[in-house]
């Protein structure tokens, strides 16, 4: 296991009989160590493309399967039952069966929607009736068919009211809103009866006619009881519908699970069939695998495939490094930190993997900014609960909790009390200037270290010129060291012309390098180089200053404690403890979260952006799991 790099990868080419390709695809997926993405094929060796028909059928089948499993809430199992191939005919059979099932489910779904709409419109009627309930008249009087008057009741989206009012005005109609809801309005439209001239307009305005229903042709009290009866009926139908849904679920569960298995088994071939090359009976499959697993893949293929399979494994060529996947084999406890690194971007194959560096610096800075034995112990305790629900994140909380405790002992802080525990070294509030200096020193060390990593990365990627001349290379590092030296001399009031020269020379080198690199007219190149060089000065300066927040948050933690105790002192005894407990909870949750985000910000923006190109691809081997059926890359 390599600590700072991807595992060594091999580019694998498999040659076999065409008939064996489906089984080989299944075996490669079962091995869990074969990634066919970004593999390239040299057409001259085997000139014919295998075609993508199988992949298309797979995608269509998957689309139906997803709709059904989602509708019937059927959770697929993690692993397939038995290793076997799924040929095109079988896949088509599955697709056609799923089409039949979806037809039934879709009809059922439509019925549900229909019932829900009925219920919704009924609820609408109830709310509408609210506006008439105090009227002691027969509501049918409001809906008479007048000889010369066109009167309509309906609902329109709220945003259309003004425009529709103007538009109706053109036709001599009048619009009045009588109920306004969140997004819609109930309106009465009236005008002189013509030959339905406004119907197209009303359709465009999404006018939902409330042709006052039969229930409204009576006294409001009678209408209300009739609506109640209808509501009862619809609710009964909905409960029957829910029962039918559970029957459908039971009826199709096994079939959907089996189809999920078939799709999981078909997926590897669906991925590979669109990529592999063929000539006659010979077929070629390419992909990436870790060097340590090449023999395992070979053994598995030999075990399941009777005919010979030729495996060619070679190291990636330098020009292939950009598309070689990175396989980062890291201990389980490092996974949450690795996830945060990958959240920024995956390290390139030849690039320095910053997960160890990230973990150590993150934990260190968190402790520095949030040092408190009590709060740290709470976070450690929290990791115990987290371990039960999200075990993959427990180590993160454990590590930052322990770091917080360690710095709590150093600062002598426990649950915001600064005088119970004697500090092993210093209390931030008592030595604020020292804290600020330490933070700047930490930042400077952090940036120097990252620049060295950046130089290493550039050299690994054969970017010799960049490694020497650019702002993240040796010249950039020299400039930064000169800047630090100058600041130090300035603080001693011994700044000399040598200091100035030591900063200017690297800047000129970077300017020339930028000039050579840029293209366009001379004015454009000058402007770009000038801005880029200026940006280097600002970036180095601001990056270092950014680390002041490490000290600022340590001070903030103590300052919050003082505020908390001042507040508690104003309360009576019971109130005092309530304030202390709630205040500590507030500090733990809110300040803890802010510190966690600030440290991440420091890592990403002051750290990763300096050296980490993060343009790599993670090794994503094919897998045989009905839970992971979506193909993200299908050429």
């Amino acid at each position, binding site marked *: 296991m390599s600590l700072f790099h991807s595992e060594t990868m091999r580019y694998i080419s498999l040659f076999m009989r065409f008939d064996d390709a489906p089984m080989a695809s299944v075996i490669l997926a079962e091995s869990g160590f074969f990634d066919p993405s970004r593999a390239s094929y040299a057409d001259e060796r085997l000139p014919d493309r295998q075609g993508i028909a199988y992949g298309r059928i797979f995608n269509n089948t998957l689309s139906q399967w997803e709709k059904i499993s989602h509708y019937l809430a059927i959770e697929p199992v993690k692993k397939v039952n038995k290793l076997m191939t799924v040929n095109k005919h079988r896949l088509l059979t599955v697709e056609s069966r799923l089409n039949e099932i979806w037809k039934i489910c879709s009809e059922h779904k439509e019925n549900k929607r229909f019932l829900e709409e009925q219920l919704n419109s009924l609820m609408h009627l109830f709310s509408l009736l609210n506006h008439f309930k105090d009227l002691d008249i027969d509501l049918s009087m409001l809906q008479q068919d007048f000889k010369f008057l066109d009167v309509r009741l309906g609902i329109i989206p709220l945003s259309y009211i003004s425009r529709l009012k103007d538009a109706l005005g053109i036709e001599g109609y009048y619009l009045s809103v009588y109920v306004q809801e969140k997004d819609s309005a109930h309106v009465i439209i009236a005008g002189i009866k013509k030959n339905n001239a406004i119907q197209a307009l009303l359709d*465009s305005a*999404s006018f939902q006619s409330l042709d006052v229903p039969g229930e409204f042709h009576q006294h409001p009290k009678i209408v209300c009881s009739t609506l109640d009866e209808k509501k009862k009926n619809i609710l009964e139908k909905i409960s029957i519908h829910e029962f039918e849904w559970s029957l459908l679920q039971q009826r199709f569960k096994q079939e959907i699970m089996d189809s999920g298995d078939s799709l999981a088994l078909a997926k590897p071939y669906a991925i590979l069939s669109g990529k592999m090359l063929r000539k006659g009976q010979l077929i070629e499959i390419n992909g990436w695998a870790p060097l340590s697993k090449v023999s395992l893949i070979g053994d598995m293929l030999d075990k399941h495939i009777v005919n010979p399979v030729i495996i060619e494994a070679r190291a990636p060529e330098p020009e292939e490094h950009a598309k070689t996947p990175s396989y980062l084999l890291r201990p389980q406890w490092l996974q949450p930190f690795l996830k945060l690194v990958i959240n920024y971007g995956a390290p390139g194959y030849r690039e320095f993997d910053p997960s160890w560096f990230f973990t150590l610096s993150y934990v260190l800075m968190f402790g520095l900014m949030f040092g408190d034995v009590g709060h740290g112990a709470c976070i450690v305790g929290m990791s115990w609960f987290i371990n039960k629900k999200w075990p993959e994140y427990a180590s993160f909380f454990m590590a930052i909790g322990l770091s917080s405790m360690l710095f709590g002992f150093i600062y002598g802080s426990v649950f915001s009390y600064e005088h119970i525990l004697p500090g092993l070294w210093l209390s931030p509030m008592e030595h604020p200037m020292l804290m600020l200096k330490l933070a700047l020193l930490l930042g400077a060390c952090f940036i120097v270290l990252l620049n060295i990593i950046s130089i290493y990365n550039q050299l690994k990627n054969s970017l010799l010129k960049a490694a020497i001349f650019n702002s993240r290379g040796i010249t950039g590092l020299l400039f930064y060291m000169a800047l630090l030296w100058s600041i130090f001399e300035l603080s001693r009031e011994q700044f000399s012309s040598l200091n100035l020269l030591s900063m200017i020379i690297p800047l000129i080198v970077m300017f020339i390098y930028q000039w050579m690199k840029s293209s366009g007219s001379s004015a454009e190149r000058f402007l770009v180089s000038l801005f880029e060089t200026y940006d280097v000065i600002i970036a180095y300066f601001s990056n270092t200053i950014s680390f002041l927040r490490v000290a600022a948050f340590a001070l903030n933690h103590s300052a919050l404690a003082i505020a908390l105790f001042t507040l508690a002192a104003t309360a009576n005894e019971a109130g005092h403890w309530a304030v202390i407990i709630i205040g500590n909870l507030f500090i733990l949750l809110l300040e803890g979260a802010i510190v966690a985000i600030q440290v991440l910000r420091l890592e990403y923006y002051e750290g990763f952006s300096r050296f980490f190109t993060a343009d790599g691809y993670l090794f994503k081997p094919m897998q045989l799991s009905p839970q992971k059926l979506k193909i993200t890359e299908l050429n």
Partner: protein
Amino acid sequence: MLKIAHYAYLQTMIMIFSKRLLNYAEISALIQQPIEKILPTLKDKGLDNIIQKLTQSHFKLLPAGNMDNLFLSVLLEDARSIIRSLSGYERDIFIYWIRRFELKNIKTILRGKSLQRSKEEVLAELTPLGSFAMLPVDVLLNADNISEVLTLLEKTPFAAIARYGSKSIEQKQDVFAIETALNRQYFTGLNEQLRVLSDKEQSLLQPLLGRIIDQTNLIWLLRYRLSYHLSPSHSYFLLVSGGLYLNSKVLVQLSQIKKLDQLYSMLPGKIGSLIKDCESIHQVELNLEKDIIEYAANMLKESAFSLTHAFAYLVFREKQLLQLHALFKGKLLHLSDDEIAFAIGGSI
């Protein structure tokens, strides 16, 4: 001072980009040149890819979709550069502006569903938007019908727009009504986006955006009334608010129009003089377009830089690319210089 520093990079970029823009005289001068001579003169105008493709094809007409996409990709590249230098709500506004092209894709998908065309046919007609693409195209193409497309859109950044393909329209499966609803909702959304700008920036942007909305409204109105023969009230309703010269009152009057020549007497002030003597809707469109370009060009000359400069550049660039597209196409189809000049709204 802070604002100036904030836009320093953007201002420099727009200053450099603006050199790519041609005025009417320059475009008109190109009309008389053969295509082989036009291309070298456009070398520093950010059209390298198009020039290369046309040279490679030995000045043969590329398939329609390819040509459109090549020009669009130029605009998107510029937009990408501008957006990259922005953040927060300013970035959102520009992304929303570019989202118009995705709206076109939504309409293509809806039309495809309505006509029951195959997935592949519809896919071939979609405009590729690269990193600007937000639509789950595959999922939408797999939808069974228009209702499902609209439901799926509610899970995308187009939710607010899609919601207005509302129930009654959905039930009637009327694609025309859905499309006009989408257009209206898009412009309503745009006005909402712009509300976060400062009053000063809004007042700077309004004349340009208002001109664009005026052009859109007037052209749609003429088509609704004179080509589709919709009723005045219906035509009026389908328009959007926010125009510069054409407020609701004017639009209500205009919606009564029965013939094109009635238009001039009904239009207020400057916009009336702009379309004087126009004999077709296309000519009206070109004249208004010319006015938009001129206004955007003037905005770019304003000394105090603001976000509106970047917007004016994008508008100018888009219109200009359309003109160049028409010019190239006309040349490749061997149309006469007069016909090309008419198509791009210029003169020889």
